[in-house]
């Protein structure tokens, strides 16, 4: 039994290492892709953790869609029923598991 646990742990470690390796490779290939277009400037972004400020009395629904108007105001379509409806549909609440 102990042996099996150990084996499982090794397997897990190997799988994790493989996953990391795959990640590194895909990152590297992305960078390589960017390098091919060297000289071309690309847009840079940073997450704004303070956005948005939802009024405390309201629970935002599932944000299905988003649009911007001429004043750069951000219009969100967030049906309140989606969260419960989607959970009911697939019994699944993971991110975007039912789209």
């Amino acid at each position, binding site marked *: 039994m102990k042996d099996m646990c150990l084996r499982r742990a090794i397997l897990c470690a190997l799988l994790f290492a493989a996953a990391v390796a795959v990640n590194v490779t895909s990152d590297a290939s992305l960078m390589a892709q*960017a390098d091919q277009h060297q000289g071309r400037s690309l847009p840079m972004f940073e997450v704004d953790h303070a956005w*948005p400020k939802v009024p405390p*009395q309201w*629970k935002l629904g*599932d944000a*299905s869609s988003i649009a911007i*108007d001429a004043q750069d105001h951000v219009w969100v*379509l967030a049906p309140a029923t989606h969260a419960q*409806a989607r959970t009911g549909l697939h019994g699944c609440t993971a991110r975007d598991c039912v789209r």
Partner: protein
Amino acid sequence: MAAPPVIVFDNAGNYIKAWGGDGNGYEWPQREHGIFIDNKGFVWLGGNNCPTNGLPRVKPVADDQLLKFTQDGKFVMQIGHSNQSKGNADTQDLHRPADEWVFPPTNELFVADGYGNHRVAVFDADSGKFKRMWGAFANKPMDDDHCMIVTPASFSDPGPQQFSIVHAIRIAKDGTVYVADREYRRVQMFTKEGKFLKQLVKTDIPFARDLALSPDANQQFLYVGGGNSIFILDRKTLEIVGNVAPAGIIGPGHEIATDSKGNLYIAQTTAGLQKLTFKGMAAKQTK
């Protein structure tokens, strides 16, 4: 308390207003999907409900309509009617439309139609009169209606001759139309008349979740949600030139949008909303 389905924030994240829901003279969709604000300031929205999904507190009807409102939520016009679609040949109704966009020079509304149909449908944005339609590769769109999302077991390039879910649509200032064919992991590019130009298929990961154009004068980039981030494409060549993946990104988005400053906004359904602040241009991307 559940917020109304339409909620507006400023770019600093402050709440401005909210509205939406059933009312007189129109059929509000059962599962809201796809919002757009046109150049005259009108608000367009649709829905993707299907009658057999058995969702609680949802009427068993197909959202086959698109609604137009003022920014204060006053009803202006409806294209199509709830649960009336006769399929892709129907020029009066939509079928679970996913997204829409108005091209100001021709005053035409382009609809990504959608979950039930498999076409781009074009209407006059004032009268709502049908003008033209096309399917993948500019083929005639064919009926293949499913309530549940059908994702193939394997993916190919160029892929099937019909669209899967036509999930997002954007039109550049020069009239080039970009369509996200989500379940087939490809972006197709057309003239505004509906001539097929080219496509990009990315078979290895979920791709073409959503679309947005960069706001620079030439709109040189097309943002395309895929995998766990957002890819940067040269919008003329459809080559992938980079990736938007800042620390803490919420995901590839369900739908995304850009503002005039170049900021990106992500709607990620159950995971919520996120703003990615544009930090300028760099010759080489850092993560």
